[in-house]
């Protein structure tokens, strides 16, 4: 398996409506939900850049960036 890329995951809290799809469907458990239901990036090192979270985010709130 290729070495996973280092990722920066940005969540725009102003757009996020706390639906929980990113946390519930991430294949790598990158996110956890805070008490108020808003997602937090707790395991960014597990991200494989599959883009399923930002493509499935209904609110355009997630931006993935590959760090060099």
């Amino acid at each position, binding site marked *: 398996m290729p070495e996973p890329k280092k990722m920066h995951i940005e969540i725009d809290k102003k757009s996020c*409506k706390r639906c929980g799809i990113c946390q*519930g469907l991430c294949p790598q458990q990158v996110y956890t939900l805070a008490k108020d239901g808003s997602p937090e990036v707790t395991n960014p090192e597990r991200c494989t850049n599959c883009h399923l979270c930002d493509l499935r985010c209904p609110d355009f709130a997630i931006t993935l960036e590959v760090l060099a």
Partner: protein
Amino acid sequence: MALSYKDYLEPSQLPHMWCPGCGDGIILRAYTEALAELELAPKDVVTVTGIGCWGKADDYVSTQAFHGTHGRALAFATGIKTANPDLTVVTLMGDGDAVTIGGNHFIHAARRNINLTAIVTNNYNYGMTGGQYSATTPLKSKTTTSPNGVAEPGFDVCFLAEAAGANFVARTTVYHAVALKNLIKEAILHPGFSLVEVISPCPTYFGRFNVHPSPVNMMNWLKDKAVPVQKYREMSAEEQYEHFAVGKIVVKERPDFYTTYQRINGGQVAAEEGDGNGR
């Protein structure tokens, strides 16, 4: 510079009005991603919508836009495409817009084979007006206007388009976000009437009464219900009732309306050419 999906969104209008976990935002993302990958200039694309939750989508895009009346998006789109065939015309309609109130426009746009793309968001109910049942609500589903379950079977939007003569017919769900983007791209490139039906969750109404209102549960419900076309065709009637087919259902090359019209009016059509439908 490569275009991004953000080039097709209108930032001043965001965040949008859709409920948490609504599939509309996921489809809008896939649509704008598809436009960016096709490198279509926003001024050359016309987004035509009708009324409904998904009908608000034209407010959020930076392409040319036309917001029509309920069910008539395809009628306006037909005029736009026929008057200016160089434009890429995409109609965004919900199940209420496309096959309930606008059912007649839908079958005739497919029959005429107008060279445009219809992205039909099917959330099985009228979300904007309070969760009433529509023509796609499955039999026995509970909605606000059918608390004991609907007594009518729902339309299969894809088979309706296929029977009416559409050139490209595909179905997917918002769970399959990558496939969704690729199908929209293919539909835009395919000549003639192209339909992409997207099964989408409405956690606020349909989900609350029939599945589970959690957006994640609704996404997993879509995953469980969706089966590839080939597998679906081999299923028994009872199994088919519980599932729907996803993937490309029809891909054919019938000449589109504009091409046929030009040919006939240019006097180049020979009688033996038939209607292009194999008849």
